[in-house]
């Protein structure tokens, strides 16, 4: 039975890196979507005000809603980021568990 700690740590780091690479792209795209949504919302609200579809009071309410939606978007980005890190950690620990299993079996 043998257990190469250095090799295992390297494998764990590689697994975490490989996972986080794909996942961090997802988090970046999530943030970009929230910012794009914010722009679209402000554009739609401005257009509605100019067209006379909403009055000044409604404009202020819609702007407040946009802030609330933006905050929710940031919560979503936080969740996606945390999930990315969690998946990287899980991938690293999977490597560790497999290495221990191999050492025991060997």
């Amino acid at each position: 039975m043998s257990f190469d700690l250095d090799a295992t740590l390297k494998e764990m780091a590689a697994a975490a890196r490989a996972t986080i690479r794909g996942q961090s792209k997802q988090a970046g795209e999530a943030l970009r979507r929230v910012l794009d949504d914010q722009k679209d919302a402000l554009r739609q609200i401005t257009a509605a005000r100019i067209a006379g579809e909403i009055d000044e009071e409604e404009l202020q309410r819609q702007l407040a809603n946009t802030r609330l939606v933006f905050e929710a978007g940031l919560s979503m980005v936080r969740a996606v980021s945390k999930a990315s890190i969690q998946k990287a950690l899980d991938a690293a620990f999977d490597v560790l568990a497999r290495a221990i299993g191999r050492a025991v079996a060997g």
Partner: protein
Amino acid sequence: MRHASRLPGSRLLHGSLLLAALLAGCVRLIAGFDEQTRNEILADARLVDRFYGELLETDEAKRPYVASAPRYVQVETELRALVLRNEARPLNQDSTDIARKILLLWQQTKDLHKRRDGYPGGSARLDRESFGRLFLYALTAEQAKPGEGDRSRAETGLRAP
């Protein structure tokens, strides 16, 4: 692992598995994916979108609060259940925040409809968009979580951004 090699195999196996489980269990940052929550988000999003679809089909002069009151109650009940389900799960603060904001916006919208006793088309269209974005954020946050989320995304065709 020189010391480990002197341990009997079964004892080492149990110890190793326990250690790995403990290590993996200790490092939790976020709740796992929950399919029922995902389904509730989709169902609530449909309810709200249908509410606006029907409202916008109705003549603007014929949108008194009383005509929509039962739908407001129905949707609020569902949204409260969604908040509760999210709150009950550990390490789920971000999704809980999103669900609370959906509920808050719904209650504010209901109060305004009641106060105005009407719902202008311009406001309704913008509110419909806001709810659409909120539900998308709730869904994306849920589906990003580790666990069955990746498989479910592939099965349903829904994608996180």
